[in-house]
């Protein structure tokens, strides 16, 4: 066994020993038993995101990768997908008291007016799905996706709702969805992180904790990559060090560490040696993947990328490239969807229309591109915000700014690929889009479904912390069976 292989071996042994052994003795957690018995399989796992083992996946997965497009700030379902002609008729009328009794809103006080949809809708494709004129290109691929029209959440403030959506809990401190996935499955490419995060138009208000590892080992943290400048922090060599010199110095560092190992016999040294090799490899592999210039012209045009700048389009193309290269979970956050109508261009009229223009082409390109490469088969794509918007206008500053308040009782998300039905709609809201009347799904159900498609049982994907087995979905969540192929 050469030293790197030995390092892999020791690493897996070490992890097993440290975190799993004693749980076995007390008999807790079948998962950990599985990973112990399947220790040999760990050799193939990426040390960037060790985890998994023969116990996982729990069953045959439909999806191997996830691209999650989170529209931070919460887009209005009423302008985009949930077409409500009745609401148009009520435009300008006072909100019926029945909708307000016992409810809590973020900003609405008193009796607001109803606000009709500001976009126009048409039916598209074989599924005759209603889609807004804000998203003309996406409308053309609407047949590819399943719409979830009755998603609900417990929170109506951005940061807590984002935490709930991405970590299963509205308070901080829990691991993120992507972290749970790499914890469960590891990562197929050992030269790239298993969980990559890309930001556009700023970042989500919840900040880095949205892709934090919580109580999981920090290897399960999302790695934030940038489409401009250095793709990963500290990836570039400092001034005066070129890659030849870097190779030499890593080589010497590792040789000295080998000497150290002979004395101290600490297996962590072997792991460190392999991590330095990997770090060096990442210095070449990551920029290569992150370089969208190498894509043919027509692909760049298809997405509408702007190389060298930060944009959602760039990130969509990067998402495809990352998945293509084996990254398990790619999380995109696009900020700026909080349309309260608090100022010019900040409403669900022109403001939202402009914002939609930034994502319309890239998203449809992403779906078409994944499809033409046969990647949509095993890549699950998820789109949504942290909650929805009210059918009532939030009259904050006067008549010309048409905004909607935060709404957590019903909003729309969509999913596609990785074993999700095409051209399907799950759930329906009432005639004004206020509450769900059928197919109601909670955030935890979405999470359970995502894990399910990856071959993970959300009730069995657990981690022992503070004397308790924690899950992404806490004690909730049901897989949404109706949307699966």
């Amino acid at each position, binding site marked *: 066994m050469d030293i790197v292989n030995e390092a892999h071996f020791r690493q897996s042994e070490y992890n097993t*020993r440290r975190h799993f052994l004693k749980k076995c003795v007390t008999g807790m957690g079948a998962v950990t038993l599985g990973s*112990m018995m399947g220790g040999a399989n760990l050799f193939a796992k990426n040390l960037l995101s060790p985890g998994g083992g023969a116990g996982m996946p729990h069953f045959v997965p439909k999806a191997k990768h996830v691209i999650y497009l989170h529209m931070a700030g919460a887009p209005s379902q009423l302008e985009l997908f949930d077409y409500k002609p009745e609401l148009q008729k009520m435009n300008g009328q006072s909100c019926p008291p029945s909708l307000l009794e016992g409810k809590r809103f973020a900003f609405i006080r008193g009796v607001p007016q109803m606000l009709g949809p500001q976009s126009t809708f048409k039916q598209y494709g074989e599924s005759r799905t209603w889609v807004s004129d804000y998203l003309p290109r996406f409308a053309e691929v609407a047949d590819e996706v399943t719409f979830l029209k009755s998603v609900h959440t417990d929170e109506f*403030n951005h940061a807590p709702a984002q935490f709930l959506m991405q970590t299963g809990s509205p308070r901080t401190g829990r691991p993120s969805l992507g972290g749970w996935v790499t914890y469960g499955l590891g990562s197929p490419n050992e030269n790239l992180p298993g969980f990559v995060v890309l930001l556009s138009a700023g970042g989500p208000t919840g900040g880095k904790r949205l892709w934090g590892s919580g109580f999981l080992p920090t*290897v399960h943290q999302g790695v934030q990559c940038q489409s401009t400048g250095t793709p990963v922090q500290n990836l570039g060599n*400092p001034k005066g060090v070129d890659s030849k010199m870097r190779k*030499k110095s890593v080589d010497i560092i590792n040789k000295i560490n080998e000497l150290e190992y002979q004395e101290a016999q600490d297996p962590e040294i072997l792991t460190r040696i392999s991590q330095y090799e990997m770090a060096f490899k990442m210095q070449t592999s990551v920029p290569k993947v992150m370089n969208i210039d190498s894509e043919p012209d027509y692909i760049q045009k298809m997405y509408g990328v702007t190389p060298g700048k930060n944009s959602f389009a760039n990130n969509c193309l990067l998402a495809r490239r990352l998945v293509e290269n084996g990254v398990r979970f790619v999380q995109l956050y696009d900020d700026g969807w909080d349309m309260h109508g608090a100022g010019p261009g900040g409403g669900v009229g022109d403001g939202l229309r402009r914002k939609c223009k930034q994502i319309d082409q890239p998203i449809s390109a992403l779906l078409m591109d994944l499809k033409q490469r046969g990647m949509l088969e095993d890549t699950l794509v998820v789109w949504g915000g942290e909650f929805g918007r009210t059918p009532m206008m939030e009259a904050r500053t006067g008549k010309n700014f048409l905004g909607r308040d935060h709404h957590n009782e019903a909003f729309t998300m969509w999913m596609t690929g990785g074993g999700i039905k095409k051209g399907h709609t799950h759930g329906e809201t009432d005639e004004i889009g206020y509450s769900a009347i059928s197919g109601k799904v909670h955030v935890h159900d979405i999470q359970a479904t995502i894990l399910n498609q990856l071959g993970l049982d959300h009730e069995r994907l657990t981690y022992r912390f503070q*004397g308790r087995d924690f899950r992404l979905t806490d004690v909730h969540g049901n897989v949404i069976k109706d949307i699966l192929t």
Partner: protein
Amino acid sequence: MSKYICLLLIAFFWSCQNSKDDEISFNRDVRPILNDKCLRCHGGVKASGEFSLLFEEDAFGQTQSGATAIVRGNHSKSELYKRIVHEDPELRMPFDAPALTQKEIDVLVQWIDQGAKWEKHWAYVPPKRDIEPPTIDSLSWAKNKIDQFVYAKMQEKELSPSPEADKATLLRRLYLDLIGIPPTHEEVKVFMENSAEDAYEKEVDKLLASSHFGERWAAMWMDLARYADSKGYEKDSNREIWKFRDYVINAFNEDMPFDKFSIEQLAGDLLPNPTEQQLIATAFHRNTLANDEGGTDNEEFRIAAVVERVATTYEVWQGTTMACVQCHSHPYDPFRHEEFYQSMAFFNNAKDNDSYFEEPKFFTYSEENREEVESLLAYIDAELLPEDAAPKEPYLYSEKEAVLTRLGYRMHEAESFYESSSFIELDESLSLLWQVQDSSWVKYDQIDLENIEQIGFFASATIGYAGDISIHLDSLKGKKIGAVKITKTGESKKGADNRYNTREFKAAIDATEGKHDVYLRFFKGERYDGHLFYLDKMRFYEREPRMKLYSTAFNQKLKKLAEIPATSTPIIQELPPVEARKTHLFERGSWLTLGNEVESGIPNIYGYPETEEPKDRLAFAQWMMSEKNPLVARVAVNRFWEQLFGFGLVESMEEFGTQGEKPTHPELLDWMAVRFETTHDWHVKPLLRELVLSATYRQSSDADVEKIEKDSRNQWLSRGFRTRLSAEQIRDQVLTVSGLLNPLVGGPSVTNSSVDGGWTGVPDWAVKGDSAKYRRSLYTLWKRVTPPNEMLTFDSPDRSVCTSRRIRTNTPLQALNLLNDETFFEASNALAVQMLQADADPEEQLMFGYAKVMGRKISDKKLLLLKELYHDAQEHFKQEKKDSNFPEAAIERIGDEKNNLAALVIVANALLNLDEFIVKG
């Protein structure tokens, strides 16, 4: 593969062996079975069939079916037995799961037949106060009593101790452990040359007395206190709370007893005549998150903070997870649902309410300003007319306030409101208020308006007619007593900060008596705008202010006094009894579904007579630190142990309950706990002294095959621990060995290349620039939404919640950080320059570099490798023509020196990346 099976089998037999003893022990033999197989349905969350095995009274009570589950002394009459051996799979327990093994059934049968003796989990039984260290045959090895426990355990496991680590390694270990930074070159030299018997002991005492001692141990406490310089949640506004960190540093430096330290943090405000420091200590629980996001309900997030305080208190001082009891009884440990709320009642009366400005706050002066304030007050005091004299206030700031108020010089910060509408914003340092929309408002608590005839508003605006302020009493739509129009104070210029361009706008006030809540309502002027106007402060003008009776010089002093800046710290303060909040149980943990009202109290498991139960937060804190509390000293010594040895004696430091790990050395843990409480009288320094003086601590960390085979995890302490350093230790060490470290102790948080201000930027009070760059990591400004990357990379928590234990990982991102980070590479440059200066001979330079970094002499083999790297780099730079391809330090140099220095930078960079450098060997 076979290895794992082998391990499993060993583990299995080991666990079986225990049950062969004749006397069945509930804790040792029975509880693990119940926890594992039964409590999921018959525990704290569910009690199927009205049967629960969590509490003794439930276990022996009647179940739903009328049967008695456990009949002491008679297993065949016990329903529990009947059900675990039942033939019908529908009735056989555990339900819908594999049957118990014969072995497990035997254990339960024997236990019942032997009388079913119930025992508390070990952690809830107070430690015995008369434990004697075991007598051992190798007294020559043992240096103190700790070693006797450890040695006895080693013998039991057929292990023997390792030799003492070499002097240099030991010294470095000691420095990193006690003060968090390695010894300097000179310090190593002195120690190596000192052959006196007590040389090591002298070093220990020197380090315990160092002012860096407090910094190192405060770093540990910061994770527990979830300390950060921002509030978390969406806006992540800045929070000025660094005085709390200084308090912790000082407490450790002064060797404040741990019980005092704890009580001050939990209830310093309730101590009789609390000192400034005791009030600042209560900021411990003001480190909770606060939500400034528009449209949030302050009460919701006030409650979230209070709930979190309960959970944190139990984790820090009791090693107990209470968070799950918020929603239901503890699934595995004997805590009932309502007991969470009884504990919460102790904390529920804190005055703070998630308001923007974070009242209540306590103000203190820097040393410099304090002197000035004192001298101004002395001057004023001497000049005061007898009728203006009044009793002294307890704190300097309140004294200043009282004097100014008495004389009629009254200023009020605009941002010190207690409540506000959604559309109120503050600047990054929270010192300026503005209204982003029309019709917003703020409320100030209990302002004395007696004799006030005018209020001056110090405002800035860039719109001609920016808006209006109207002043109302007691409620938003209460009596209007005055109004003022705000107009332009300066031009709007791109990039310029117009916010501080203030002018005073005076509003005449209707005569009003006494104190009132004052509401300010803000309205737009000629148009809507994002920011109508900014408001900095207000001045209240009295009709006949006393200060008019004094000289101009006197009045100038008053003005000066009023303008001296103070540092604010949010603190905990109890609401007065009339405003006391009632505490209700929350059904399923939801604050919107109130259950029964509960009174404050401690969980029953602690076995405290109800009549003696603590009734307020102070009494609760005192109970926690009393000998009646079984956990606090154990949890504390375990933390200190873990910081030195890498793992706690109870590895799950956050969880001492039944689901936590068992202590590897229970008698040692208890003996140390009692000793900490009694002999050391809660002093941390003597505790640590004893630990580092032990032979156990001084062992070499080198392992051999036998030790790894027998004890791969080093649970039985037959060698030293080889532990990767913490994020703070790694960076501080890099700064120390490169000579960049700025060793200043204490003060406001600082910015450096790893600081990202996030949405709300870097506050005014943070230290910036060169003096900030190389301070110890403890001082790095910590924004919760964007914490310093390198800290997270090296396994630091993000400080959103209390964290007892950092799980160490080993990742390529850590390698990238050490290789390429800006500050780390600056350190490589700085170290290279020193290497160059150290000697003319390149080989000597390399040896010097290694010795500087590792505090010991390099081995020949390692030196050979460094030489190889040096020569390669030298050749490389010889070929290099462009200045921009040289490391920073070498650019200005010429000729050979340029290439040599550049090559040394490469070597220095490698040295700072060695495994041995980032671990404590």
